[in-house]
């Protein structure tokens, strides 16, 4: 895979992408503001939701055990997966044991993390994504670029082209026509599927319940029509009871899309019972670790409180400029810059926490008030402590520490540094800097340091 900065350059060259991203994220951000303004006690609910998540995480192991017990009491089979491979193997085994051949899937970032679709197809199963955005992602054989709006980077023309090419229908960019085409395909799949796969937005500990939110009704069809339902959930997605779930849904849709509530909210507490009109015969929950336990004990444990609303992506000027794919893994944007190195380690992902101006827009919009800039700073510190910083930067910073903590040395360096910089300047401006500074002069000029420092001017002023 290309290096992060190369992916960024590719994204930045794509004017089409930048325009699409800017328009869509601006729109979402303003919807969010309006939606929260209309929620009474929004700030208090955000505080309570945060507190509930943080308290739950403090005893995640104990809470998971209780959750497992309550799921089982409801007749739900529970499986534990240490990593993505194990999760995929479990789902395939469930499918084989129940003789399932055709799977329909509702939107799930956990299964994006494990690349479940490819594993299922390799195991000989048919699998169809039924969220409209994810359906297009699957047709285009790409990956989502946003955790809520998988194809936020595409225009309707792009979508029309994909649909035209992949399922051989005449080209159209009319959203209504495209939706009708997809709907016909998906209906057929829903009715013939024997396995429904979903993620899980919230797991309610005390009732042993899986909660799903969606806007298209596809999650409900996936979890009620097929014979077998498997929900794959990250182990951090718990809430203590339905009361906390209520707080969460009050802020989730508002933060994500500016809706008061999603069109469909499914609260599932087990397979079909005697007398039920619908529902699967068999229901499974796969609890996925995949690196989360490593995060739990460390400096960025707070990130496990994330409810995956995507508000931080929409608010992030970096994400707005480069889109989701440049981040290189399942989770893009500010959340991705923390979760990805957290789940996968800093070795291959240390550039992500660096790619932020620490503007704090993400922290402001986070419904559960995650201090994202603090976590980015912590990860940068971890990177340095693990010796991952380039030698040039390391020596530069060492020099900075030595010089700047000694006023006389600082003054001397500033004076000589200023002289050298002024030599590079013409009429007070530097147009091209060497080395690292070249990054600056790539898209802006640099004002040369002043001939007299403030302290010199101050002394002269005092004397006068």
């Amino acid at each position, binding site marked *: 895979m290309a290096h992060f*900065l190369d992916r960024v*350059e590719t994204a*930045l060259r794509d004017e089409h992408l*930048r325009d699409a991203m800017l328009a869509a994220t*601006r729109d979402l951000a303003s919807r969010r503001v309006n939606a929260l303004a209309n929620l009474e006690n929004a700030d208090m609910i955000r505080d309570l939701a945060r507190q509930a998540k943080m308290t739950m995480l403090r005893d995640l192991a104990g809470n998971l055990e209780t959750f497992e017990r309550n799921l089982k009491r409801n007749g739900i089979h529970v499986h534990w997966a240490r990593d993505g491979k194990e999760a995929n193997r479990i789902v395939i085994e469930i499918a084989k044991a129940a003789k399932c051949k055709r799977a329909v899937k509702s939107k799930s970032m956990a299964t994006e993390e494990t690349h479940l679709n490819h594993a299922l197809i390799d195991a000989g199963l048919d699998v169809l994504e039924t969220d409209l955005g994810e359906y297009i992602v699957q047709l285009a054989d790409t990956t989502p670029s946003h955790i809520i709006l998988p194809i936020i980077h595409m225009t309707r023309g792009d979508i029309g082209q994909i649909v035209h090419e992949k399922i051989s229908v005449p080209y159209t960019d009319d959203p209504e026509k495209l939706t009708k085409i997809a709907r016909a395909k998906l209906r057929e799949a829903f009715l013939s599927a024997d396995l429904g796969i979903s993620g899980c937005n919230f797991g309610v500990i005390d009732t042993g319940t899986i909660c799903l939110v969606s806007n298209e009704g596809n999650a409900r069809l996936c979890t009620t029509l097929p014979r077998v339902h498997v929900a794959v959930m990250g182990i951090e997605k718990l809430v203590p009871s339905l009361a906390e779930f209520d707080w969460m849904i009050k802020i989730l849709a508002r933060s994500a899309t500016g809706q008061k509530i999603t069109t469909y909210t499914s609260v599932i507490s087990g397979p079909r019972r005697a007398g039920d009109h619908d529902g699967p015969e068999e229901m499974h929950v796969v609890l996925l670790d995949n690196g989360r336990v490593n995060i739990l004990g460390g400096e960025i444990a707070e990130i496990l409180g994330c409810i995956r609303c995507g508000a931080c992506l929409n608010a992030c*000027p*970096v994400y*707005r*400029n*480069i889109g989701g794919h440049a981040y290189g893994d399942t989770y893009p944007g500010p959340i991705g810059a923390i979760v990805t190195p957290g789940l996968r380690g800093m070795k291959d992902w240390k550039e992500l926490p*660096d*790619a*932020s*101006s*620490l*503007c*704090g*827009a993400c*922290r402001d919009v986070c419904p559960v008030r995650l201090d994202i800039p*603090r976590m980015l*700073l912590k*990860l*940068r*510190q*971890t*990177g*340095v*402590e693990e010796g991952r*910083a380039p030698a040039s*930067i*390391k020596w530069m*910073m060492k020099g*900075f*520490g*030595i010089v*700047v*903590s*000694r*006023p006389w040395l*600082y003054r001397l360096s*500033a004076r000589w540094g200023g002289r050298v910089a002024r030599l590079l300047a013409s009429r007070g*401006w530097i147009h091209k800097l060497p080395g*690292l*500074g070249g*990054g*600056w002069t*790539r*898209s*802006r*000029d640099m*004002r040369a*340091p*002043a001939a*007299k420092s*403030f*302290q*010199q*001017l*101050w002394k002269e*002023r005092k004397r006068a």
Partner: protein
Amino acid sequence: MKEKPRKVQLFHTCIVNEVYPEVGISVATILERLGVEVEVPTSQTCCGQPAFNAGFHDDARKVARHTVDLLLKSGDPVLIPSGSCCDMISHQYHMLFENDAEYLKKSHELSERCYEFSQFLVDVLGITDLGARINAKVAYHPSCHLLRGLGVRTQPKTLLEGVGHLECATVKDQEECCGFGGMFSVKNSGISGGMLENKLKNIQASGANTIVSCDMGCLMHLEGGLKRRGSDINVKHISQILAEGLS
């Protein structure tokens, strides 16, 4: 209400000292005019933010200890003409010293006495109108650490609204970052350049002839972008526009 301070220590910041010394002069001019004596501790250097943001906490701590010790020598409030450096000293030092009880305590003591320039004028001195007058159409740029770090949203606007003949332009996405971010603008120059581009487009569309902010870091970045594009829009620290309006 507490008695208003008669004297402040000016932590001028390294960028003002080396690149924009005239900003320090205008800050002092305004304060003196308001009857506040300005003392400049000569041993000050930089707040340490470049190393801190890059993850080099040991190196940043050396600088931070020096700054804490220096500024605690006097009991006077510390005035900082930068939202970002003020946020660094009043909030981020706590993270730097989380394992150093002595300096953690000192940094808390210091943070209670640190004020950004506009914050000091409006919140501490209770000034909203200095009687300044200037013909300018101004795009105010709320710097991120001022706005979201210190929570200073209204104070600079209040001061600008108090300036006669001054028009505040409406800027699209006004609260979005300009892309500076210190080392970010160098290490991630492509993304930073994209952010700068968006910001300058919005400011140019607003019809403003001057960008005003409370942070010379952001203004240095914006000014460099304007210069590269051959634009004649000026950049000014808020103290400069106030001082010019008084002269």
